[in-house]
């Protein structure tokens, strides 16, 4: 039985094509996925991300717990409202999920995890929490709307009372705050500026319709996928899962293991690093015509690899992908599309952000 978000009726009213996503009935597009993509890069679009799981971690040992649970170090969170991206690993260093942690106060942290991994994450977090003096509370009553694009923040700020609007306008990237009913975070999954706004379910349709009236375009999971791919952001379950570590997933920068801090999976990562990491996740740009897709075979001088995500990039007007290939491979490779080997250049994502193609990509 699939679940619906509080915005289901708004999606239907906007002409959405609905699909199943991790047990949720979600909009894939409202007509043209490419138009939605461009709208976010050039103006403002909004995504219903109410299916994502919000979990509050409260108690005297909240920070110590997260310091043990996560591969990135919550010690980096020193100003209330600051956010941190991290992987949550198993003992083998495999990625259980990727998530964002918000530091609200010393007794209160909030994490947002993926919808598709909800059951596994909750079981893992609850199990790990047993040794700590904390309370883990899921917040399924919260809806979440991501408003993204160069005009996105303005569209949200216009809806707030003057005082809140002035404070929320000051939020720095990767920071958040509570404004009345709204928890507003300057985060996203598109490579554009914007806010991710959590609110009580009953406030969701009002907020959505006000954004609509302000000219923000409803955007579906299709555009969300091409935007995050262009922005160089991994999708859990596709670009990474429990069989790979952050070091094999272009996420070494999110792992803090230089100091003494113990965290789940650290020993496995240290061992892997000492022995040499055999594969890496890179960006590919197809040189000729065609479309890159997940699961295509990659041929390099150093051995074979595979694409994990791939699509047509509306910003580059070329096919782009992430691929896991041997660590020694550099510069170029070939992709097997229906038996033909086509040339790709190997690049370092992001491909496109802030409305434009990134330097050195094409």
């Amino acid at each position, binding site marked *: 039985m699939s679940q619906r978000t509080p915005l289901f009726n708004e999606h239907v009213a906007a002409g959405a094509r609905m699909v199943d996503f991790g047990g949720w009935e979600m909009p*894939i*597009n409202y007509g*043209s*996925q*490419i138009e939605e993509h461009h709208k976010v890069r050039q103006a403002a679009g909004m995504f219903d991300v109410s299916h994502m799981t919000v979990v509050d971690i409260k108690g005297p040992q909240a920070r110590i717990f997260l310091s043990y649970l996560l591969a990135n170090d919550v010690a980096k969170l020193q100003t209330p409202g600051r956010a941190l991206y991290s992987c949550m690993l198993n003992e083998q260093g495999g990625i259980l999920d990727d998530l964002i942690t918000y530091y609200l106060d010393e007794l209160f942290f909030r994490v947002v995890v993926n919808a598709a991994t909800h059951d596994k994450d909750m079981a893992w977090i609850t199990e790990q929490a047993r040794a700590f003096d904390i309370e883990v509370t899921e917040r399924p009553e919260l809806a979440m709307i991501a408003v993204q694009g160069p005009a996105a923040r303005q569209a949200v700020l216009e809806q707030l009372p003057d005082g809140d609007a002035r404070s929320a306008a000051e939020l720095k990237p990767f920071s958040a705050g509570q404004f009345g009913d709204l928890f507003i975070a300057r985060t996203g999954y598109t490579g554009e500026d914007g806010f991710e706004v959590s609110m009580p379910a009953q406030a969701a349709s009002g907020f959505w319709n006000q954004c609509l009236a302000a000219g923000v375009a409803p955007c579906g999971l*299709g555009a969300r996928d*091409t935007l995050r791919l262009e922005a160089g952001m991994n999708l859990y379950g596709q670009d990474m899962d429990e069989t790979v570590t952050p070091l094999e997933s272009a996420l070494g920068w999110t792992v803090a293991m230089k100091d003494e801090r113990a965290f789940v999976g650290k020993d496995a990562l240290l061992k892997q690093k000492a022995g040499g990491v055999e594969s890496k996740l890179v960006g590919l740009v197809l040189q000729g*015509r*065609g*479309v890159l*897709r997940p699961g295509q075979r990659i041929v390099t001088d150093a051995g074979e690899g595979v694409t994990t995500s791939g*699509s*047509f990039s*509306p910003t580059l007007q070329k*096919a782009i992908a992430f691929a896991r290939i041997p660590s020694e491979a550099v510069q170029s490779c070939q992709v097997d599309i*229906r038996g033909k080997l086509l040339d790709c250049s190997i690049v370092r994502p992001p491909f496109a952000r802030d409305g434009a193609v990134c330097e050195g990509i094409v």
Partner: protein
Amino acid sequence: MSNIPSHLNYTESHEWVSVDDDGNARIGITDHAQEALGDLVYVELPAVGDEISQSDPCAVVESVKAASDLYAPVSGTIVEINETLDDDPAVINSDPYDDGWLFLVKLVDKAELEGLKDAEAYAALLED
């Protein structure tokens, strides 16, 4: 409701066929197919001179979402392909039955046309 012109013939795999005055068959994908696929970004067509056989995969249409095989509605030799699709595959979305045609086939066996669906039968298929 998708557009199903009454003068065309259809396949269960959502291709359409029209027979030109000279007896050649013009092939495309239906309005229903283009809508289900979403924004088209790439088309891989057979080459002029290629032989195709009914029901075999003979071309690939790719949207942002997915790649989809096109099955030959009829057997024959490719006599012309729609080269404008190279630069503008989205014309299949905007005009699937006219400017969005894919290729023209010189038929080997006109009897194959009789096995295709008429507009009414294709509409009934979409209802199911």
